[in-house]
């Protein structure tokens, strides 16, 4: 006899329990990243010229490419969700792994950036700008890695035709990770 969690049998809000939980996770993540970005913005506005000079050393081309990669991976995961809705299991599985590949490319570009910047002396301890840079992008990168891991786990259930609703749920998380980067990119790479 399979155990069905009670929470999945009813909904006060009209949203399936799993998806509502993801929205709550997104809300808590907004506080985490929002707090970090608001603090960065306050310092940036206060230290305008000095921080602008520090930000000149970030790699805009790499940042722009990473924005393209994340937007494309967002497309892949929403196409995976569409395929899952249509019960096209093979296509859903493929698109989930295209999304994971996008996350992998993002992390490789990030690794290249970090390596180059650290070799040029722009470490976390060089200035408060670089502390913010590594904290914000590092925290974001950690979220990308976790998203990739969860998508991989979900993909194996999807391959068996089980728990297809989870594709949408992890998709919402992945889109949020993309939205965070959409704001990080201009703050850290464009505003020089």
């Amino acid at each position, binding site marked *: 006899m399979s155990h069905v969690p009670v929470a*999945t*049998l*009813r*909904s006060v*809000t*009209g*949203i*399936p*329990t799993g998806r*509502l939980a993801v*929205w*709550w996770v*997104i*809300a808590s993540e*907004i*506080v985490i990243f*929002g*707090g970090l970005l*608001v603090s960065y*913005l*306050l*310092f940036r*506005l*206060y230290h305008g010229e000095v921080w602008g000079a520090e930000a000149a050393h970030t790699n*805009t081309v790499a940042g*722009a490419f990473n*924005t*393209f990669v994340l*937007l*494309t991976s*967002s*497309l892949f995961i*929403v*196409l995976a969700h*569409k395929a899952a*809705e249509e019960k096209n299991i093979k296509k859903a599985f493929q698109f989930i792994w295209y999304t994971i590949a996008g996350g992998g490319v993002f992390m490789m570009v990030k690794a290249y950036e970090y390596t180059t910047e650290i070799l040029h002396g722009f470490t976390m301890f060089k200035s*408060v700008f670089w502390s913010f840079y590594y904290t914000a992008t590092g925290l974001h990168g950690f979220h990308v890695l976790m998203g990739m891991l969860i998508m991989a786990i979900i993909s194996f259930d999807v391959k068996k035709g089980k728990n297809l*609703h989870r594709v*949408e749920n992890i*998709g*919402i998380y992945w*889109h*949020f990770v*993309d*939205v965070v980067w*959409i*704001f990080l*990119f*201009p703050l850290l790479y*464009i*505003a*020089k």
Partner: protein
Amino acid sequence: MSEQAHPKINYVKIWFVLLVLLTVSIIGPMIGIRSLTLITAFGIAVVKALMVCGYFMHLKFEKKIAWYILITILALMFLFFFAVAPDVMKHKGNNWVRPSPILLPVQGGGHH
């Protein structure tokens, strides 16, 4: 629990529009006009975020509770900014001066 089907959305078209906006947000600041940089880099970031939220996350078609949760949290972020900003952004006022904490020299010996 039955799921409502999403309306038909051309996701590839949305993605293409996002890439065009990304291109504009990169080119705009290169022109070097501060107000244009603010509009193209940050204004477009807001538009892109809304498009991703609306069409990819299906927030446009989601039940109101999701909106209430997100708007409440965003309001708290605004509150955080405006509550803390006067203290961070000003370094002097009526009868007070706040030296920048970043510039304070490191004291050895431990007197407070």
